[in-house]
């Protein structure tokens, strides 16, 4: 994968769109990418990765969802 081409392809999503339109286009893209992956478990892992910078690190072995800790 050419990293510059990949980045440019994602930037292209926002061409000529205002912020609200961009956000909706992003949500559509998320759904299309998730469907293309075709694997709920992989999507769950990527969701966890995407929000990892906001989540408190879990203690080892603590598999409970965030809101229960």
């Amino acid at each position, binding site marked *: 994968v050419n990293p510059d081409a990949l980045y440019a392809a994602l930037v292209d999503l926002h061409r000529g769109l205002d912020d609200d339109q961009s*956000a*909706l286009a992003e*949500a*559509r893209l*998320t*759904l*299309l990418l998730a*469907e293309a992956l075709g694997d709920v478990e992989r999507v769950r892992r990527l969701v966890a990765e995407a929000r990892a910078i906001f989540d408190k690190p879990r203690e080892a072995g603590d598999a409970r969802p965030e809101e229960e800790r």
Partner: protein
Amino acid sequence: MPFELEWVSLYTFQCRRLARFRHGRVLFLGDAAHQVSPFGARGGNSGIQDSDNLAWKLALVIAGKAPASLLDSYESERGFAADENILHSTRSTEFISPKGKARRRLRDAVLSLAADHGFARAMVNSGRLSVPCILPAEGLQTPDAEPWPGGVPPGAALPDAPLRAAGGRDCWLLGAVGGRFAVLLFEPEAAAEARLADTLRHHPVGADIVVLRSMAPATGDAWLHDHARLAEQRLALQPGCACLMRPDQHVAARWRAVDAKAILAALDRAAGRTGPPNIEAAA
């Protein structure tokens, strides 16, 4: 599509359940035990399913034919169903009224993709219609001893099928079982059927025998004709097989061949008179 709002109102609801449905001699069911959103017809349906599940157990316990611990299975089975209903209900609620801008945008993205993409259309969740839950194939149920591809596994509710009684009267499979335990036999051998009937006669709980045949025999009248072969198809029946039905029309167990001893053991287990075999061995 442009539209005009005629009437707007707000209502609130809760998705919640009691931790325990049985408190000794007090049993909770329906809205008293669990509450869901109105999407999917889960409130009324689950209340009726609760009473279907409880009534026969209560009757057996009151008659002294099953121990009071059978009532604990009401709580575990219907608690399982309530959790399933609450999960579906919570998901529908999330889709219909997303909390916050980002969640609403995700929902709107699904709607905007739905016209052209089947996967997005399938995500549109305005309430998944309630269907009977499949109870765990353990507890009162006896898991399949042999592989049985397709059909209706132990724990699932029996689907209906059109039948014809001897004499030509049209009837339905769900009209032929229910209210009592029943053993459904498909194309049984006469000797096996007679042995089973004899064994069941001496059992305190007992079970009706319902015989299905795909070809109407010339003699006798104690059978139902599966003339459209839909019972055979929907239950994936093979000649000689047997299904034990609970009084609430859920499948308790099924066998490739009529084994009276196994059927009695499954009947005792389904009536809460014995635990699953491994628990018995450990005790």
